[in-house]
């Protein structure tokens, strides 16, 4: 089974700070370590409570009529037959929403998106009308009774043609709009970079496509809206990764006062960024409830999820690397055409239209870097950024890690050696890169060497050479990634004006049990366990005595939610700090109880005691009872053990990892088999290694999916060809090997517990390793690049000397 390198192989700062897990799990009965997830008993027993499990008295059901074409003027809608259906309670069209000033809603990227079509259909699957009926079946049946007339327009499908002079203008709703350009964005120094390129011994360039893929969470999106016409209050159960941000937006858009809105995100069956934005369906459920005076449930089906909700990637990139002839990388330059679909609805920080793509400088010490990204509209579903990508770090890492391999081939150097030669050295941290990031910490070489040791790298290369002699195709792919996650400092990052901070509230009950309330929301990441462990580590209360509350805006402090691997970097910091605040307060109360001065007390896990007199002390439970009891409290200390904080992180965190993939390719059919995959991750302090491994396993599986099979394709008319799991393939256990995971520990110097986030590392780092392995396997055919997905047909075409882009 899985080989786990149990001991950190390296780790500057290892053991240097309190709370470092390096002492090993077994020695630490409280706090960090490999404990089972607190949420699993309910999930394993089928007792999770998801949006679709919610049933309210008198609840009605909604269904959305979607556009069958990609680009068309709406001529007319006749809803009379649908309204005559005995079970139908309401049919809502764009015109009705215009009356309520709700036909268009702001996106998370300073654009607007139609809730229901008023003027023009802009992608296949777009929302055209909403039926509310007594049951789901009737709502679905009534969709067929709506008569819509469309005037078909030529669509823009190929992003490369979106800026052509004769391209139809998709967003003629926007005043003054004469083309399909959304933005041009650049970063780095173009002139400096050009100078380095001009003087370099070696320059390589490669066009590559990161195809449009879909997060495809197991649970599709949905909502139950319950508007109370008497008190004007709205309770909205939603599949959302960001309940607080949603509530604020609903207040701003719908005009319902924020204190009257409660957003509840119950158990969520996977998000991967798919559940960050606000979808028309959520708004329609709310409108449906307001119109009918009854709760309204809307849950989309699989095809709706795949065809209309946030996709990911869709970056057409050109990469260039300048290097010396002995393999010192000097500069990286890239030019990107970004397909954003019909509305610019990417979920990312306001000042970062290309997300964090500017981390494309990778793990290397460069003299110069420059990038330009052009975003365009096409007649495809909107969204983007989603899918475990850390705000486009995925695309950035793919670009640079593919380019480094292209360079290695050009220089006839081993790709692992080339990377080792160019890493940012440990003493250079904190490292200011050429696009404005300050990498907080890193120690790359030990991670790379550990992955090579686990893989038996030399031996693999020998085996490959022998196999090549016999005409067998074996490939070894390396990738080394650095992410930038945990957005982020409020001075730099906001989403629609909301700073990207997170709150935490901690209450220790009189008997010493505790509840911690988070502003982030779990979609399967194990927050109920990890965050209890952070409190446990700081207060010495066992995790099972700590309840973690999340997902309900009435129950939790404000914060921006879970995506971009930000929960541990941001909320984890908040939780550690709130626990320390409680611990500090406990010191004063303990001093009062022990009739001594606070400065005479010393902390050991779970207990304050008198220095030099370990017998004289008070446990957290005793202190909690004291706080709520009759002990005379010092001035300024209230009678409780509660605290709250909002954590504004000083910087982002920079997890990294070294991945090695081994593939075998069937020369007769082009079939790729991932034989082995070695993943060494460094996410700083490791809270629960089992949960970390789970995140890594899931991300690696995603990576296999993207590298080998996943793509949302469109035909020339704009028909989505990936609208079901028959056409949009996601990997199964059969396509993945037993993962071999290892780790190093380089704690973040600025994070309260040194943790960096792990949620997306493997999704980010694995696709280039797999593609590099496939391209390596195909080296005998003279292939230096092929685009994802590496399906049998596409690999075979590459073997014939004609690799082609997927779009």
């Amino acid at each position, binding site marked *: 089974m899985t080989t786990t390198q149990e001991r950190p192989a390296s780790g500057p700062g290892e053991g240097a700070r309190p709370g470092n897990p390096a002492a090993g799990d077994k020695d630490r009965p409280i706090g960090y370590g490999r404990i089972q997830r607190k949420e699993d008993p309910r999930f394993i027993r089928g007792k999770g409570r998801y949006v679709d499990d919610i049933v309210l008295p008198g609840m009605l059901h909604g269904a959305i009529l979607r556009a069958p074409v990609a680009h068309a003027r709406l001529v007319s809608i006749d809803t009379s037959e649908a309204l005559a259906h005995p079970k139908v309670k309401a049919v809502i069209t764009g015109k009705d929403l215009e009356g309520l000033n709700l036909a268009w809603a702001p996106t998370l990227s300073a654009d607007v998106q139609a809730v229901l079509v008023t003027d023009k259909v802009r992608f296949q699957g777009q929302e055209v009308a909403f039926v509310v009926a007594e049951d*789901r*079946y009737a709502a*679905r*049946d009534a969709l067929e009774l709506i008569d819509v007339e469309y005037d078909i327009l030529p669509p823009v499908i190929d992003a490369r043609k979106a800026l052509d002079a004769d391209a139809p203008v998709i967003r003629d709703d926007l005043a003054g709009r004469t083309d399909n350009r959304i933005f041009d964005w650049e970063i780095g120094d173009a002139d400096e970079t050009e100078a380095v390129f001009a003087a370099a011994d070696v320059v390589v360039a490669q066009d590559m496509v990161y195809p449009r893929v879909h997060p495809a969470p197991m649970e599709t999106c949905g909502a139950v809206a319950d508007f109370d016409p008497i008190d004007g209050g709205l309770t909205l159960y939603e599949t959302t990764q960001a309940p607080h941000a949603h509530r604020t937006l609903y207040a701003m858009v719908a005009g319902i006062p924020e204190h009257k809105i409660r957003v509840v995100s119950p158990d969520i069956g996977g998000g991967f960024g798919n559940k960050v934005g606000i979808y028309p369906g959520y708004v329609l459920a709310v409108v449906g409830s307001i119109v009918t005076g009854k709760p309204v449930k809307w*849950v989309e*089906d*699989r*095809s709706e999820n795949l065809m209309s909700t946030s996709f990911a990637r869709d970056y057409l990139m050109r990469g260039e690397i300048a290097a010396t002839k002995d393999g010192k990388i000097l500069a990286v330059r890239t030019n990107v055409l970004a397909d954003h679909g019909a509305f610019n609805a990417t979920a990312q920080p306001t000042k970062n239209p290309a997300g964090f793509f500017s981390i494309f400088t990778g793990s290397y010490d460069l003299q110069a870097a420059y990038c330009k990204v052009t975003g365009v509209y096409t007649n495809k579903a909107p969204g983007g950024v989603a899918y475990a990508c850390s705000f486009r770090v995925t695309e950035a890492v793919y670009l640079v890690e593919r380019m480094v391999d292209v360079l290695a081939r050009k220089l006839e150097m081993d790709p692992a050696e080339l990377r080792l030669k160019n890493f940012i050295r440990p003493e250079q941290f904190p490292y200011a890169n050429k696009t404005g990031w300050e990498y907080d910490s890193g120690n790359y070489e030990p991670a790379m060497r550990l992955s090579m040791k686990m893989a038996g790298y030399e031996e693999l290369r020998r085996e490959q050479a022998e196999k090549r002699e016999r005409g067998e195709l074996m490939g070894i792919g390396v990738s080394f990634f650095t992410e930038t996650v945990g957005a982020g400092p409020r001075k730099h990052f906001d989403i629609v004006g909301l700073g990207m901070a997170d709150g935490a509230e901690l209450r220790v009950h009189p008997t010493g049990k505790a509840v911690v309330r988070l502003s982030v929301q779990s979609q399967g990441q194990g927050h109920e366990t990890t965050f209890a462990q952070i409190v446990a580590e700081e207060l010495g209360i066992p995790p099972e005595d700590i309840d973690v509350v999340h997902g309900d805006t009435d129950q939790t402090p404000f914060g921006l939610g879970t995506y971009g691997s930000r929960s541990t970097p941001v909320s984890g910091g908040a939780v550690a700090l709130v626990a320390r605040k409680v611990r500090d307060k406990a010191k004063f109360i303990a001093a009062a109880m022990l009739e001594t001065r606070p400065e005479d007390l010393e902390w050991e896990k779970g207990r304050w005691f008198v220095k030099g007199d370990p017998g004289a002390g008070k446990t957290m439970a005793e202190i909690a009872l004291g706080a709520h009891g009759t002990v005379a409290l010092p001035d300024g200390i209230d009678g409780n053990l509660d605290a709250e904080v909002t954590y504004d992180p000083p910087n982002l965190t920079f997890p990294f990892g070294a991945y090695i993939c081994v593939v075998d390719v069937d020369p*007769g*059919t*082009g*079939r790729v088999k991932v034989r082995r995959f070695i993943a060494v991750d460094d996410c700083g302090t490791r809270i629960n290694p089992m949960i970390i491994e789970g995140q890594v396993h899931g991300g690696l599986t995603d990576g296999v999916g993207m590298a*080998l*099979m996943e793509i949302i*394709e469109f035909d020339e008319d704009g028909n989505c*060809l990936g609208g*079901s799991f*028959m*056409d949009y*393939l996601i*990997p*199964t256990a*059969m*396509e993945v090997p037993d993962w071999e995971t290892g780790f190093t520990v380089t704690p973040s110097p600025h994070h309260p517990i040194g943790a960096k986030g792990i949620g997306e590392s493997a999704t980010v780092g694995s696709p280039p390793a797999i593609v590099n392995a496939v391209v390596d396997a195909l080296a005998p055919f003279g292939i230096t690049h092929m685009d994802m997905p590496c*399906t*049998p*047909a596409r690999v*075979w*075409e590459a073997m014939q000397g004609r690799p082609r882009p997927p779009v």
Partner: protein
Amino acid sequence: MQIPAPFDYVRASDVDNALALLERHGPESRLVAGGHSLLPMMKLRLARPEWLIDINGLAELDFMVREGNVFRIGALTRHTTLLESPEVARLFPIVTDAEQVIADPVVRNRGTIGGSLCQADPAEDLSTVCDVLRAEAVIRGPAGERVVAMDEFHRGPYETAVGQNELMSELRFPIRPRSSSAYEKVERRVGDWAVAAAGAAVSLAADGTIEESSVGLTAVGLDGTVAGIGDLLGGRRPDEDLFAEAGRIAAAACEPVADQRGGIDYKRHLADELTRRVLRRACARASEEQEG
């Protein structure tokens, strides 16, 4: 949740009852066996039967039995039953090969051989298997029973010789001495339909030369078996050159269309490559059989 159009449902109590129900409810009624082809189409509203006649209770259609040189398989036999049968594996390894790559365990536990054949999807693996093994289909209708050969059974994509008021009750497979068979499929992912697949059956003469042979292709636009292969191989010793020649014939015989699974040239290449592979394996197995 994907929601089909409204329909009514009735369980048949035996074959005669099923036929009577088909008669009563007419052209808008459909039999449902495993439901793994019909229900997905209904959920996408590509099929909208008004009545579903459930034949899952008909134990008389769920059997496997050898009678002399004929192996009879009831129409309601599940994929899993075929996959797990040692007798099937011994007599017709092509069936076991194919069943290993048909869908996934969830589908195989319910899906039936009758449903597969009657669905007649151009990518249906068992259709090729039955062609290659020269099976016969037994069809029952108001007028009684008739037995049809595969070339008569298939009427093109999604069409068969089974009339609206009829059902398929069983398939009959001839058992030949010194024979064996093999199947191989290329798919983009486990559980996916074939990009292309090939099946072969061979019988060897006592001297080790090929006596009879047939090759079928899946999902590449070929009806029935590849013409000319039996003649080419007949009387010759199995070897790589021969397989290569057969592969070329198969590639020329098919008419694939380009889709998301692959282009025409790739599929044609697979017809060639997979034909060689299945012939190689079938011959190897048959000669083991002979020695064993």
